[in-house]
């Protein structure tokens, strides 16, 4: 099995557009862009994309989202979303957009998941800077140190979940984190390999007297800084996978003991509920039937009706599909 996957990956490694092809397609696409400019009217109100997954079970979270939407409305927030360190709108992305979305995350699980997403955003910035041209080293350094800071924060978030009673949530979030880091490790490795190849090509061109040595050096230095980031991400990914396995081991064991106890409790609660309902039925039936049997008897004006309005349903835990 591994051999087949390796074959696929090796075959894909050098498969890309040539510089000319990439430029030609870009030119064709931008010819379309120029003929179909941005529709300014549609930028006055933000429209939610189908890719935003929101939980609308809780009315409170709906109102918080509406407020967040109003705060985030406008093209500035939208435009800031894809910025990187060094861009003018990057502070809007971090201090406005991300703060607002942190406010929305009310439960510990939502906070931890948002922290995972924040790390992913920092990784995306690193990747964007790796492919952009004319990037200043300080911008790359900022992106790198942001990534480290947010990774540490996220580890603390998951630890909080673990310490609390949210064991299942901790397992899910740790799993999501490991998966996300795995994907980005692959992207970074791709970019790193590409930089090395371009470096080699640049070196060859330098030797042939075509370009200056600085071009080759730049790509090598890019590859080296990516290499450092990849080492960190790889370590974080291994730690996340370890943590995920450890949590599953601990809580799945305890879970099976707890489950028996919790099931017993649930059954008892349901038994009591059945008795209550049965009594209600008897009382109601009596009310209906007794006038028919002895019509002169007054209806019992006891407060049985009140009991039927009692909504003490057994709690059914809602399960997140994510």
């Amino acid at each position: 099995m591994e051999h087949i996957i390796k074959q696929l990956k090796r075959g894909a490694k050098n498969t890309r557009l040539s510089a000319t092809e990439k430029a030609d397609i870009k030119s064709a696409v931008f010819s379309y862009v120029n003929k179909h400019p941005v529709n300014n009217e549609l930028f006055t109100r933000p429209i939610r994309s189908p890719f935003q997954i929101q939980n609308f079970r809780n009315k409170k979270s709906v109102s918080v989202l509406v407020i967040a939407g109003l705060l985030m409305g406008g093209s500035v927030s939208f435009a800031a979303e894809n910025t990187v360190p060094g861009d003018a709108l990057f502070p809007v992305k971090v201090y406005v957009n991300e703060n607002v979305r942190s406010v929305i995350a009310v439960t510990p699980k939502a906070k931890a998941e948002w922290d995972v997403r924040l790390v992913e955003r920092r990784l995306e910035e690193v990747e964007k800077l790796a492919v952009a041209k004319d990037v200043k080293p300080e911008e790359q350094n900022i992106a790198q140190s942001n990534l480290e800071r947010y990774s540490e924060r996220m580890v603390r978030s998951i630890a909080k979940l673990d310490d609390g009673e949210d064991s299942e949530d901790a397992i899910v979030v740790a799993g999501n984190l490991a998966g996300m880091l795995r994907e980005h490790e692959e992207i970074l490795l791709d970019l790193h390999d590409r930089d090395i190849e371009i470096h080699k090509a640049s070196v060859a061109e330098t030797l042939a007297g075509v370009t200056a040595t600085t071009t080759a050096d730049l790509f090598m230095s890019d590859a080296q800084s990516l290499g450092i980031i990849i080492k960190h991400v790889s370590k974080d990914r291994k730690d996340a996978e370890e943590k995920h396995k450890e949590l599953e081991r601990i809580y799945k064991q305890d879970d099976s003991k707890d489950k028996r106890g919790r099931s017993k409790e649930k059954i008892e609660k349901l038994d009591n509920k059945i008795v209550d309902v049965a009594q209600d039925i008897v009382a109601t039936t009596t009310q209906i039937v007794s006038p028919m049997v002895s019509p002169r008897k007054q209806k019992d004006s006891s407060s049985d009706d009140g009991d039927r309005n009692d909504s003490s349903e057994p709690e059914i835990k809602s399960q997140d599909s994510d």
Partner: protein
Amino acid sequence: MKINVVEQEFTKTYDQFADAIFRHCIFRVSDREKAKDITQVAFVRLWDYMSQGKEIDNMRAFLYRITNNLIIDEYRKKKEVSLDLMRDEEGFDIGFEPRHDIESRDEYERAQALLEQLPDKYREAIVMRHIDGLSVKEIARITHETENVVSVRIHRAIEKLKSLRS
């Protein structure tokens, strides 16, 4: 001002993802020109979406979804004509960019040869997982399938390739 900002973001997105989208296309349709066409249309569709002020939470997943839909349309169009027949008419597959070394070209052709033996849905799953590096969860969202279905397809794709090889 707004226009420039959206265009800038779109340009960055193109620079970042054009190669990945092209790579996905070529391993799905086995034809370089067709793969380039689909890549171009995918970015045009992305522009249509962005220029209307719609927010995109996950750009990468969104692009793969557009691309996958275009490829499915392509398969439907070509349903009457088998891909083999098409290749016979066009001559040999010049899928690989001729400037690269022979070893890389051989590796590419070996990967293509493996994938061409798979039914569309298996090929879709295995390309997304092992060439594009998408997670099972992301693939499920992109293809509107459950994670279980995606995992099963990937597993069956690999089993099929193993059995064909032996």
